[in-house]
Structures are given as structure tokens and as C-alpha cells.
């Protein structure tokens, strides 16, 4: 295991560049090795191309041992990676000298070195656009409903969620788009008594001065998510005066506050050195981290008004469990799974839908909703573990066509499908395609990239061209998609990756282009005339994972994935990444280890997600080099 980690390029780079981390990482590696066994790196190359120069593989925090299915070796270890259930006073951070500093957290890390926790946290991250809009809605409520505000929101930069391929762009590239929004909101707040009362708790028509005071004393600290100093307050007072006071002054001051980096950046300025290269955050920053990471929105009053909330992990956990069940928390959870698995299903081919007597329009949106319902039900109603979430036959056939697609009766309640697994990875939302035929190569590559966090090098265009020529030379009426794909990727330069890609793609051939279960591949012409039919061969020698076992159909694939440490690792990385807008670095080993361990212990996924946020990392960040 240790060899595997050191061979791993990002980790190796970090080890070379951050000498101070070496001890911690060695300990972490040893701890993780003890937890989850070891793997021979020769059997499990770090990258898909077998370690070709320049190619990088995703981080792997822990690997499977022979007994990985049971997880018993993990739960038995005395050095649990979880930061929740144990404590170690010896690892307490340095005393906080600030008078208003929060109480020390209870340091509970035993499986990793506490002084590495939080070192990778970003000091000044901008709010993502969704976070920004959520924060504006939280603070400005009904003022956001004004036409001018609604249309102004289109001026904000649109951004895609991060992925393994796309890192978060932390630059501030457009200040004027936000200005449009800020001015619209400022105007909306002071437009009438109703909005001023809802936002500031005062009547702008009757008493402008009280609105000024409410803004300065109460609203600004909430907006900036920290106490406001005298100098800052005076600056805003002067600005209001300079604009001419009254409504106009307040309107423009509101715009200024929205445009201030104190609002649209996650600033963690109030922090105390711990003496080990880190800073201990003040309570307001910790609360902000908790709320944004779990709900994508700022802390609510209940969190802010609880003096015990940020003093310890148990205090935080209490609020985390509440927040994750809030509407915003639920949406955040849905977004996590949608983003991780890139759920954006198209409407199906009209021809195929017609053959199946399904209306194609809107089916993509319907299967996406079905996916959401499943995730929500399993997590919030059943309290499912990750393994249960992955390995289930439950579907939600709430419409005629969904029922038809899944081969069950219409029902508002969940039912089990008669054929094949569905779980998290094999729902119609993941499998439906807008094409008339499946493409096992695309499916396999997409699946591995998403579910296993595997990265593939860009194939040589000449090899791709040659492969396509081979595939086209094989008539689709004489050869199955599996045979054509095999032939297209049989070249010497292709096999390295495609052995893995195709293995998954071929097993997923058990699902048709609509995402339906099938026993045969049927080939139609453009008009829907049946041209040929081939039996499905959904077997594969192995998946190229740490445990090599033959795969016998989609159900077997699903079970292997449910107990795969690679899938567990991948989920841990995504749950970490979407909360923080970055994928983990070696300094995050403790936090990732917590998540991996919680999954191995088959804790409910919601607990795992809470753990991914509520661990000791939340209290710290690195000191900046000045």
C-alpha cells in the first residue's frame, strides 16, 4: 500500500515538495494500510495506460484486501480513520488567545496526524454562482422576486460543476455582472415597505434612519458572516452620506455590500495560529464552512445563535444532521449524485421510443426525476448505506412509460424490478441515450470515468480512425455491437485502456438504448424495420479492479461495484470535492480516510456525508506564506 501511494504521482510530487508532510503521510499510509489491507501495485497500475509518461491517475485512498467485501478488518482496527467517535487530547491544537475565540474542538483524530488537518483548505475561495444566488436568496428573500432582480441574475457568470477534468476557476473574472445584480437588489429592497421590512425589519416609507441602523448593525454582519468593526461601519455610514442619505444611500450601500469581497468570497480572516503551520478559524468561519458545504447556502439563524455549535465536532454534527435534512441540504445531496454521475439524460430516439410505444418527449427529464426520487428515498427515508444505495433493485415507476421501461406496474411507491439491478449506477437516467443503438465504448468509458474516477488519455486520432474503419467494415446486421466494438479496439495501441473500458461497456449491453433491460440486441433501420437480432453476451473476464473476478452479467457487475474500494474511494473524493470545489490533495488524507472508513463500516450515506464535512479539518487552514 505504501509503495502504491509513493508510486502515485500527485502524492509523490507532494512528498518531494512538502517535506514536513512526509511523516504524516507515512503514518496515514500505514494507518490506511492497516485498515483496508494492501494491494500489489504491479497488479493495479496507478494509471490506465500502465504508467505512461504524463498520464495521471486519480488519487486512491486505501485499497481492497482479499477480505474487502466484509470490511471486518477495518472495523476491527484500533486506529479508526473516523474523526467522529474517538478523541485524543494529545492532539489538541494550540491555545486560542483571542478573547472571542470559540472553544477548542475536541480533537478526535487517531488515525492520522492532526497537524496535517486543514492544510489544504482554500483560504479565499469565491462563492460559486449557485452559492452566490443561494446566499442572495437567503439574505434578501422577497426582494429577489422583483422583475428587475430576476432578469439581472442572467448577468452572473454561468459555470459548470467541477469534475475530474475541470477544476474550479477561483479567479474573479467579471465584476460588472454582479454589479447589475447588486444594484437591482438594492433597488428592490428599498422599493417599498414590504421588502424593506422583510429584509431589514424596518419600514423604508416611514423611517429611513431606522433602516440605516438595521442595515449597519444587524444586516451587514449577517451578510459578511462575521462581526463588523467600527471602522468598517463608519465607512458604510460615510458612503450612505456621500450618496445623499435616505433611500438612495441605503440602496447604494446595499449594492456596495453585495459587491464587497467580504460577501462574495469565503474569507477566513479571523483565525489564530496554532504553532504548527496552521490557523484555527473563528466560530463564524467554521459555521460558514459547515453551512455552505452542506447546503450551498450561508449559516441560518439556528446555527448562528447556538454558542455550542462550533465549539466541538459534536456541536457541529448536531447542526449538520439538521442542515442536511433541510430543503437546501436535500438539494445539495441530490446535486452531489447528479453531478458525480453526470445525470443529464436526453430524450430517446423517436424511432426506438415508437417501437416501444413510448412518447419520447420529456422522457429524459422523467428518468432524471426518477433518479432523484430514488436517491432521496434511499438516503432520507431508508437511511441507506452506500452499499445499499448501490446494490438495490428498487425503482420508482411513477408514470406509465417509466413502468413500461422498467417492466413493472405504475406505482407511486418504490417497487423492485424483475430483471437486472438498478441501484445507483444502472438506472435509466444513466443508461438512456438519444441514439438508436448503444455504444459500449462510450458507455464503458463514461461509466469508468464517473463511477471509478478513472482518467483516460486522449486516444491517438489515427488509431481512432482506423478503429472506426474496422467497425464500419463489419455490417451491423451481421455483427453485434460487442463484436464490432471489440474489433474496433483490438489494435495494439488501444487494448491497454479498452480492456477496462470494454469490460464495463459489454456488461452494460444488457441495457438497451432506452435504458431498458434486454436479452437481445435488436437492429433497426431508420424506419424502424427490424433488420437483425443478437443475443447479449454480458460477461467480462474482469473489470481491471483490485479484485479480479469474472463478471457474469449486470447484476454481478453491480455487486462487484457495491463492494469495490475503488468505487468507495471515488465517492469519497466526489463528496469531498463538491463540498469544497476541489478534489483532495495528499494533505486531505485524513478527511478522505474518514469517509472511506465510514462507508466500509456501512454507515448511512447521510452520516458519511456529514462526516465528510464534520471532521477536524473544518477548524483549520494553513498559515499563508507572507
Amino acid at each position, binding site marked *: 500500500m505504501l509503495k502504491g501511494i509513493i508510486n502515485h504521482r500527485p502524492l509523490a510530487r507532494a512528498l518531494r515538495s512538502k517535506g514536513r508532510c512526509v511523516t504524516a503521510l507515512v503514518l496515514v499510509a500505514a494507518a490506511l494500510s492497516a485498515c483496508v489491507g494492501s494491494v500489489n501495485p504491479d497488479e493495479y497500475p496507478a494509471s490506465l495506460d500502465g504508467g505512461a509518461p504524463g498520464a495521471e491517475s486519480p488519487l486512491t485512498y486505501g485499497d481492497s484486501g482479499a477480505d474487502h467485501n466484509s470490511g471486518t478488518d477495518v472495523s476491527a482496527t484500533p486506529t479508526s480513520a473516523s474523526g467522529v467517535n474517538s478523541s485524543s487530547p494529545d492532539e489538541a491544537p494550540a491555545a486560542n488567545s483571542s478573547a472571542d475565540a470559540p472553544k477548542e474542538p475536541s480533537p478526535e483524530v487517531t488515525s492520522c496526524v492532526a497537524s496535517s488537518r486543514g492544510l489544504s483548505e482554500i*483560504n*479565499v475561495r469565491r462563492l460559486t454562482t449557485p452559492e452566490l444566488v443561494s446566499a442572495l436568496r437567503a439574505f434578501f428573500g422577497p426582494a429577489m422576486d422583483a*422583475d*428587475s432582480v*430576476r*432578469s*439581472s441574475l*442572467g*448577468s452572473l457568470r*454561468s459555470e459548470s460543476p467541477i469534475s475530474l477534468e475541470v477544476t474550479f476557476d*477561483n*479567479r*474573479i*473574472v*467579471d*465584476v*460588472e455582472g454582479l*454589479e*447589475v445584480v447588486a*444594484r437591482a437588489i438594492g*433597488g428592490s429592497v*428599498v*422599493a417599498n415597505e414590504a421588502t424593506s421590512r422583510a429584509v431589514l425589519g424596518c419600514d423604508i416609507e416611514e423611517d429611513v434612519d431606522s433602516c440605516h441602523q438595521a442595515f449597519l448593525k444587524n444586516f451587514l454582519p449577517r451578510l459578511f458572516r462575521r462581526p463588523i468593526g467600527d471602522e*468598517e461601519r463608519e*465607512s458604510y455610514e460615510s*458612503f450612505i452620506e*456621500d*450618496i*445623499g442619505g*435616505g*433611500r*438612495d444611500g441605503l440602496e*447604494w450601500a446595499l*449594492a*456596495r455590500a453585495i*459587491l*464587497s*469581497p*467580504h460577501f462574495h*468570497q469565503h*474569507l*477566513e*480572516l*479571523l*483565525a489564530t495560529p496554532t504553532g504548527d503551520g496552521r*490557523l484555527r478559524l473563528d466560530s463564524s468561519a467554521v459555521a460558514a464552512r459547515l453551512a455552505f458545504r452542506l447546503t450551498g447556502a450561508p449559516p441560518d439563524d439556528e446555527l448562528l445563535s447556538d454558542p455550542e455549535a462550533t465549539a466541538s465536532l459534536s456541536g457541529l454534527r448536531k447542526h449538520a444532521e439538521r442542515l442536511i435534512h433541510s430543503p437546501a441540504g436535500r438539494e445539495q445531496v441530490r446535486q452531489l449524485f447528479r453531478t458525480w454521475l453526470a445525470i443529464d439524460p436526453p430524450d430517446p430516439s423517436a424511432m426506438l421510443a415508437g417501437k416501444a410505444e413510448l412518447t419520447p418527449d*420529456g422522457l429524459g*427529464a*422523467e428518468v432524471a426525476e426518477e433518479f432523484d426520487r430514488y436517491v432521496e428515498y434511499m438516503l432520507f427515508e431508508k437511511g441507506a448505506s452506500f452499499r445499499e444505495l448501490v446494490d438495490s433493485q428498487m425503482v420508482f415507476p411513477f408514470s406509465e412509460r417509466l413502468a413500461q421501461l422498467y417492466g413493472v406496474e405504475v406505482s407511486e411507491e418504490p417497487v423492485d424490478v424483475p430483471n437486472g439491478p438498478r441501484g445507483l449506477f444502472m438506472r435509466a437516467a444513466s443508461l438512456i441515450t438519444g441514439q438508436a443503438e448503444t455504444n459500449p465504448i462510450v458507455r464503458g468509458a463514461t461509466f469508468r470515468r464517473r463511477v471509478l474516477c478513472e482518467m483516460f488519455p486522449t486516444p491517438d486520432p489515427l488509431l481512432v480512425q482506423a478503429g472506426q474503419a474496422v467497425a464500419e467494415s463489419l455490417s451491423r446486421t451481421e455483427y453485434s455491437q460487442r463484436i464490432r466494438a471489440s474489433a474496433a479496439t483490438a489494435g495494439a495501441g488501444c487494448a491497454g485502456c479498452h480492456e477496462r473500458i470494454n469490460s464495463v461497456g459489454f456488461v452494460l449491453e444488457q441495457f438497451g438504448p432506452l435504458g431498458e433491460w434486454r436479452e437481445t440486441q435488436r437492429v433497426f433501420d431508420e424506419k424502424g424495420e427490424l433488420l437483425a437480432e443478437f443475443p447479449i453476451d454480458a460477461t467480462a473476464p474482469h473489470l481491471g479492479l483490485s479484485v479480479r473476478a469474472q463478471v457474469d452479467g449486470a447484476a454481478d457487475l453491480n455487486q462487484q461495484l457495491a463492494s469495490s474500494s475503488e468505487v468507495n474511494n471515488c465517492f469519497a473524493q466526489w463528496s469531498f470535492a463538491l463540498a469544497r470545489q476541489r478534489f483532495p490533495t495528499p494533505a486531505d488524507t485524513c478527511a478522505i480516510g474518514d469517509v472511506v472508513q465510514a462507508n466500509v463500516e456501512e454507515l448511512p450515506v447521510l452520516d458519511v456525508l456529514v462526516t465528510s464535512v464534520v471532521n477536524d479539518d473544518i477548524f483549520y487552514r494553513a498559515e*499563508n*506564506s*507572507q
Partner: protein
Amino acid sequence: MRSVKHSRRMFLCGTGGALMTIPFLPSLAPRSARAQEASQLKYVLMSSNYCVDQDGALPFPANHKPYATVTQLDDATSAQSLDEIVAKRGFFTSSIQGQDWDNLRPYMNIAFGTAVNGTNDKHNSCAMTAASMPHDVLADDHPRNDNPVFKFSADYLAERLLATPQHAYGALRMNLAFRHGADFGYVLSEYQNFAFGGPSASDPRFAERLPTMRDVAQLEQKLTSLGSSDGESVLERKSKLIDAVRDDYRSVIKSNAIGTDDRQRLEQAIELWNEAENRLLKGTAGSSCGAPDLMTASGDVRASWAVYHDYALDLCAYALACRVTPVISYALLHTSDDGPDNGDEHLLMHSGAHDDRDKVMAKAMPWRLARVARFANRLLELKDENDVSLLESTLISWGHEYAAPGAHPNAGHWTMMLGRAGGSLQTGNFLNLSGTPVTKNYYTTYHECVPYNRVLLTQLLALGHTNESIEAITGSVGFGEYGTVANNTNDHRQGASFGWSNAGRARFYTDAEKRKPLPILRVT
């Protein structure tokens, strides 16, 4: 801004011009300095409803005989020179002739023979293409109702591209339904549930529609309210705002808790604010901004719809010249002062006698085009920040709803474009997009009409959008809804003045074709 101390009466009685200058900083950069930068582009989308007098609008009778040399620009577009047509024929059409149109011909393109899909949910399926398409074309629970349909409106896309904080308004949208406080019937009652209606407070399905003004008083209010109570301009306040925000950034940068990378990032943001301020100071207004004699209508002289529209369009011209907004979306729905209202017009289109329809439209079209010509000539006269005609940096698009009298035919539309959009368009062309006629069973059909979407896409690309930026907003390839090809859908072969069919349009529905502009777009 609500701090209006100047009364509307005062504004209308002659001080309007002076007030119009208030929003802009008095000490602008020297004109020579301003001339170094390209003029800001502007977009005006004018839409009329129902059919137009197609035969009277085109330079040929029903047999489509060309008057000028035909040049095939691409496989779907042929062109004739407007100048050559006029030189040979003496005029373009009965509705488009005279000095006003002669002035505009060098800035003009007429695109004829597009086809429209009116069957789906995206806005440019309707040739009106402005403001906001209703959601009521779909079932309440249709999943696409989640998507604000105004994202498929050309004016919205233009606003997203052109609006800057320098503009007091990202766009001004007008549908004049009221005159002297009176509701002009069908204009309001139909079109509040159709394009130009603005958001509805009572019906959540329509809450996403964009705000639309319904009388001139609202536009006057928007323009006069730019000045504040003590005469300080919005832009002076914006300058103060920028100062204060930069101070806020600096206060963070000074903190010891900020590392080098973050400091640099925040300093870069300050640079962006510096650039915003520079733009604010440099190119605030055109040199024509504030010319008081442009106010040709004032007080209560707005007795007719013609004067009322002309006055509103004068204000719109001002708003463009003074950089109050970069986008105007304007509904030109009235037929004339004594023509039928839109309700009667609707019935007439569906079931009226041919002669009656032709009489109405023969009168309505020149009346509407006269408004367009007058407005475009205003822009031609006005100068922008570089002292050149506003029409050089503006693109006006005038289109209409249905192609010809009858049962709402949706093929054979024509669109007029005026302005050079900063030089990105070749002008002076009559463009035929109707494809090669097919004669079968003694019946001639035009079945390869270019989708109307291509005209709108070309306009957006001319303004500076890219296919990628458009698709990032709309989430679909090309621009808007392309529908499906079926002879039973939108096949108005039997009802239109000419024969039209969708049969040959499938070739335009590949992604590459959807992203393709008209060949008049200059590639830079």
C-alpha cells in the same frame, strides 16, 4: 431609482433634452480619445403581428422573377442587389420607396423565404421573437416549463451580451397597449398572454417573462428617473460605488491572513474595477445624446397611434444614443389609426374575404413600415461616441408573425434588417432563402426554406455572440426550436399565397447547419 423630482410634465415641455444629459458625467474624455475604441453595438428588435401584404412587400410578383443579377452566396442563399433592383425597377416595392428608404438602402438587408416552426416551446418558433413566449403553449406540468422561455428570445440573448453596468437598463421592452390611459383591446388582452406581455403577478406560469412597458409614460419615467434628487447622476454614483468597492478589496488585501496568491487574485479584481471605471469615464454617451430638438412630440399632441409610436421610438433612439440601454424590443402591433384592432384583424386573417384582408394589410404594412423607416432614419442622423451614425453600430430587425393572409401560414416570411452592426454584416442585399421551387402535378412548391432561426442566429453572431456563447445560455444547438419535418405540420401549401412545404427542410437540421449563419456575416 425612484428619486424623481422633475415632473413628467416638465420633461415633456421642453426640458427633456437637458434632463436626458443629466445621467452622464459632464467631464467625459475628449472625443479624440473616445474615437480610438469601437462603438458599442446596439440591437433593436421590432415585431409586428399577423400577416403582411407579401405581394406588396417583395420586389416581384408571385412568379418570383428576379429584377437583378442573382448571385448564389451559398447553397441555400441567393442575393440580388437592392440598388440594382431599384435602378431597374424604379423602386423596391410600393411600401418601400421614397427618400426615407433611399437613405436606408445602404444599411438594409431583406431576407425572404424563411420558414418558422410554430409548434414547440422555444420562443423563436414564433417570428415575433421578442420578450417572452408564453408557457401556455405547453401543458402546465410539461418539464420544459421549468426553462424560462425568454432564453430563446433574440433580444434576451442580445441583452446578455451587450448590457454593461454603464447602461441604466439592460434592455427596454415596449408593447404600447395604452394611449391616454385607455386599453387598446386586443393588443393587451391577447399579448399579455403572448409575446411582449411582461411577467404576470397572478399566473406563476408567466412569472418568468421579462418586464415590458405598456405605455409611453413608463418609458418617460425610466428616462427621467435617471437623474437623482440633487442632480447627481447615476454614473457619478456608480463612480463612488466603484471607489468604495475597491476600498473594500484593499481592506482585505491588507490583512495578514491573506496569502500571496489570494492577494494577487484580489488585486486582479481591482484591476477589473479600474477598467470598468475607465469605460465609465471614457465612452458614456454618444455625441448626439441630449440634443433637445429630437423631441418632436410633447404634451398632448400624441393624438394618433402614429404620433404616439413615433414619439416612443424617438425616446428609444435617445436611449440608444445616450447609452441608457443597448437593446430595444418593440412591438409594433397597431395596423393604423383607423384600421381594425387586433381582435378584428385576427378574425379577418382567419375568415375574412380575401379582398378585405388585402385592403387591411395593404394599408397596415406601409403604416408600420413608415414607423420603422422614421426610427431608422433617426438612428442614421444620431451620432455615437465615435461621431459616426448610430446605424453603423446598430442592428434593427423587423419581422412579422405570419407569412401571408390565410390560416396562419408559417413559411415564406421575410425579415428586414437595418444597420451594419459595427461592420459585421454586408448590407444592401435582397436575400432569397426559399430554395429551389419544385413543380409536381402542375403545382409549384417551395420546400427548402431556410429556418427563420438562421436569420436570428446571424443577427446574434453579428452582435458578437458565438455559437458557444448562445448555446451556453439556451442549452440547445443553433438558436431555438427547429421542430420536426412533417408534411402535416406547418405545411401551408394549400392556404398560402405561394406554395410552401416543409418536405425539403430536413437538411437544415444537422448541428452544423443549425450553427451556420447567413453568408452576409463577415468573418473577422
